[in-house]
């Protein structure tokens, strides 16, 4: 069965600094990997995905993520954080043979002005 771990409950970053939100996964086959963001009182929104190909994927709002097969990681990154990036971020994984998408517990990102 697939699983996702987000080791940090909260990440604090000063505005303008680079940010990283960590995610590791476990699947028996090839993974499909995703990041979603949840703003207060809003539904989850898709940010980006890795399916195949280039290990560095780019998504919405200037976010990117790097797939590392040997480390089974898919960390979310942004070169320069904005206060408006403050939200709850979820990593998710799907085994390519299965339609079930499993989410991590989430990481709260605080960008400090």
């Amino acid at each position, binding site marked *: 069965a697939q699983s996702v771990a987000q080791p940090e409950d909260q990440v604090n970053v000063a505005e303008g600094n680079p940010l990283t939100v960590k995610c590791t996964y476990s699947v028996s086959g090839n993974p499909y990997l995703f990041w979603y963001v949840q703003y207060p009182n809003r539904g989850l929104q898709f940010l980006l995905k890795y399916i195949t190909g280039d290990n560095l994927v780019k998504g919405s709002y200037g976010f990117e993520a790097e797939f590392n097969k040997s480390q089974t990681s898919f960390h979310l990154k942004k070169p320069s954080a904005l206060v408006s990036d403050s939200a709850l971020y979820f990593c998710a994984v799907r085994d390519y043979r*299965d339609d079930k998408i499993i989410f991590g*517990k989430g990481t709260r990102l605080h960008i400090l002005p």
Partner: protein
Amino acid sequence: GAGVSQTPSNKVTEKGKYVELRCDPISGHTALYWYRQSLGQGPEFLIYFQGTGAADDSGLPNDRFFAVRPEGSVSTLKIQRTERGDSAVYLCASSLRRSNTGELFFGEGSRLTVL
């Protein structure tokens, strides 16, 4: 509609009562998912529909929970004999087709409070 619609947005009920939560997916989306999100946790998978049939219901916690999608569009999550531990936000999501590479479109959720 333009997005996934969930009703009611808030539901307060008493322990032991029956509850129905409705999801209206994006038009044309054949895949529909139900998740449950408790405070401080990530979305927990409950059930997944492809068309009218439940393709995977392995996340339903027990037989008090049931979901239907009779015409392949609107889905209803049904909870019998509610318990206080059922209190959570119930999320619905849809996607275009089974082979879709997994981008889900979420509704804003139905917050269930069991007193």
